[in-house]
C-alpha cells in the first residue's frame, strides 16, 4: 500500500487510530431507489475512502442491503449519481462491477452448493482466466498452466482462512460459520479493491465472530482492501469501523466516526425508540 497518499482530510477517528486512508474511492450522491411505490432508499449520499472500513447500520428494513445492491449493480437507482474512482458510472451490471474490482458476500449465504470449497473459491478467480474454450477442452498448454497458477493463489486464501481440511468438501455439507468463511474466500480470490460484506457475522457464536473480525481486519490491513460492512452487532461495528453511516426507513440519519454516531440523537431514537 502506498503510504504517501494519506489524505489529511480523513476523519478525526482515522487519525486517532493511526489508520491509513486514501482518497474517496466511491462517492454516492443523492441516491433514490424505488420498487413501484415502495421507496427503498431516499436521497442518500455518502462516500467511501480507499482502505477504510465503512459500516452501514440501521434497523431491519432500513435499506442497508439495497444500498450494497446499488453499489455493485444488482439494483439500478432511479435518481442520483455514483462516482467510482472519480468516474461517473452509468448503468452497470453486476459482472461489470466485479471487473472494476468490487466483490461482495451475501446476507444469506450465496455459495455454489454443488461445488467443492476449492471450486467455489476458484470461481472467484474466473475473471483472470484467459484461455479459450478449445484450450480448456484439451486441458493442455495455457489452460493447464492457468489452472495450476490460480490453484496456488487459491491455496494461499485457503491457508489465510484456515480451511485447509475442507478444501475438497462440497460446501453444502459445511457448517454455517465455515460457509461464511468460504464465501469471504471466494470474494477475496478476485483480489478486489473494494469488498462489500453483508452481515458476515449474522448467526455466529462469539468465537466465530472473533475469527471473522480478525479475517476482516487482516484483509483490510494486509491487502489494503476497502471494506463496506453491514452488521447488526454494534460491539463489532463500533470496534472495527473507521466511519459509520446510519440508515433508517431508507433515509440517512447519521454519518461519522463510531463515537459521533453513538451519541447522535436520531440514531439513538431509531434504535431505542422514543417516549411520546
Amino acid at each position, binding site marked *: 500500500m502506498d503510504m504517501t497518499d494519506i489524505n489529511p482530510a480523513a476523519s478525526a477517528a482515522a487519525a486517532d487510530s493511526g489508520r491509513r486512508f486514501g482518497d474517496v474511492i466511491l462517492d454516492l450522491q443523492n441516491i433514490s431507489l424505488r420498487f413501484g411505490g415502495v421507496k427503498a432508499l431516499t436521497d442518500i449520499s455518502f462516500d467511501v475512502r480507499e482502505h477504510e472500513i465503512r459500516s452501514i447500520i440501521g434497523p431491519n428494513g432500513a435499506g442497508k442491503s439495497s444500498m450494497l445492491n446499488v453499489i455493485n449493480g444488482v439494483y439500478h437507482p432511479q435518481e442520483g449519481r455514483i462516482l467510482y474512482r472519480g468516474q461517473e458510472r452509468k448503468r452497470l451490471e453486476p*459482472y461489470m462491477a466485479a471487473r472494476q474490482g468490487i466483490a461482495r458476500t451475501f446476507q444469506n449465504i450465496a455459495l455454489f452448493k454443488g*461445488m467443492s470449497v476449492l471450486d467455489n473459491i476458484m470461481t472467484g478467480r474466473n475473471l483472470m482466466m484467459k484461455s479459450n474454450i478449445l484450450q480448456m477442452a484439451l486441458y493442455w498448454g495455457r489452460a493447464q498452466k492457468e489452472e495450476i497458477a490460480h490453484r496456488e493463489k487459491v491455496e494461499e486464501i485457503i491457508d489465510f482462512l484456515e480451511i485447509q481440511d475442507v478444501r475438497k468438501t462440497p460446501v453444502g455439507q459445511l457448517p454455517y460459520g465455515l460457509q461464511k468463511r468460504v464465501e469471504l474466500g471466494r470474494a477475496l480470490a478476485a483480489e478486489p479493491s473494494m469488498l462489500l460484506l453483508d452481515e458476515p457475522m449474522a448467526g455466529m457464536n462469539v468465537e466465530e465472530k472473533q475469527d471473522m473480525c480478525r479475517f476482516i481486519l487482516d484483509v483490510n490491513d494486509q491487502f489494503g482492501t476497502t471494506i463496506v460492512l453491514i452488521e447488526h452487532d454494534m460491539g463489532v461495528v463500533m470496534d472495527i469501523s473507521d466511519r459509520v453511516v446510519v440508515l433508517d426507513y431508507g433515509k440517512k440519519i447519521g454519518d461519522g466516526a463510531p463515537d459521533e454516531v453513538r451519541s447522535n440523537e436520531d440514531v439513538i431514537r431509531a434504535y431505542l425508540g422514543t417516549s411520546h
Partner: protein
Amino acid sequence: MLYRENGQFKTSYAADQQIFPILQDRWAIGLLLLVAFVAMPLLGSEYFFRAILIPFLILALAALGLNILVGYCGQISLGTGAFMAVGAYAAYNFMVRIDGMPLIVAMLLGGLAATVIGVLFGIPSLRIKGLYLAVATLAAQFFTDWAFLRIGWFTNHSTSGSVSVANLNVFGIPIESPVSKYLFCLVVVCVFALMAKNLTRSAIGRQWMAIRDMDVAAAVIGIRPVYAKLTAFAVSSFIVGVAGVLWAFVYLGAWEPAAFSIDRSFQLLFMVIIGGLGSISGAFLGAAFMVLLPVVLDQLPHWLGIPISTATVSHLVHMIFGALIVFFLIVEPHGLAKLWSVGKQKMRLWPFPH
C-alpha cells in the same frame, strides 16, 4: 486389492488435479478401455454390437451433451432430439452436396450446425428459467420436426421423406461391418467424453455450475450469465449434434424425422436424470440403464428357463422398467453416478463406518 488412497501423496497441483487422482481408479479405467477396445471386438457377436453397444455408445454421447446443459449449467432442455436431427440432416446435406466430403468433417460440420441452432434456441434462457425454458425449447423440437418433413431441400427432395447414406469410410477405412462401426463410435465417444470432462473441470465448467447453483452470486463475482448460458447451449448442442450424425449415419443408415422425435428428447432427459445430473460418468450409466436394462429384462425369463410368453414378457418389461426408474429416483435422486460415488466412499473406509 483394497480401494485405498493411503500413501498416494500428491506433491504438485498438477498431480492433484488429474481426472483420476486415485491409482486404483486409473487401473480400473485402463482395464475398462482395454475391454472396450480389445476384448469386445474379439468376443462380441454381431447382434451385441448392433442392438446394444452401438446404440448405447451413441445415446451416451447425446446424454453427455445434454448433461452439460442440464446437469452442469442447470438449463432444462426438451429439444435434444431436434439438435440431433439438425446435426444429422446438416451432415447429410454436406455429404450429398459436396463431392468427396470426408465423414469426420461432415460430422463436425453437422455438430456446428446443431451449435448454431442450439444457441438460437438457447436465447430464451437469458430471460426464462426452469420449466418455462423447457417449454420454450420444445419449440425447437416442433420446428425441426416440421422443417425436415416439409422443406424438401433438407432431404434432397427425397420422395419418401426418408434419406440414407452409404459407403461410409474414415481415412479410406470402410465403416460398414458392426465391429468397425462400434470402434468408430467408441473412439468418437472417448474423445468427446475426455474433452467434456476437461471443460467441466476448467474455468468454463465452473462458470456453468455457478450459474446453475446461484445465478445472482455468479454475476456478482464477474460471470456473464449470457456468456455462460450460451456457451453451455453451444457445447451441448455440438455434442448432441455429433451424436445425431452417428445415430443417423452409423446406427440407422436410413432415417426420417421420426427418428428424432420428442420421444428421443424425453429418453435422453431421463437418461441424464437417472444417470446423474452434472456428472460425465452419469451419462454413461444412464444410457446403460436405459439401453441395457430392457434387453436384460427381456432375456431374463429365457435365461432362467421360466416358461412365459413373449407378449407377457414385453408387457412385464415395461412395468418393471418403470418401477425401477421410480425406485432408483427415490433411493438416490442424484442418480446412479451418485450411488456409485457413495459406494466408492464406503469402500475407502471399509470396514469402518465413518
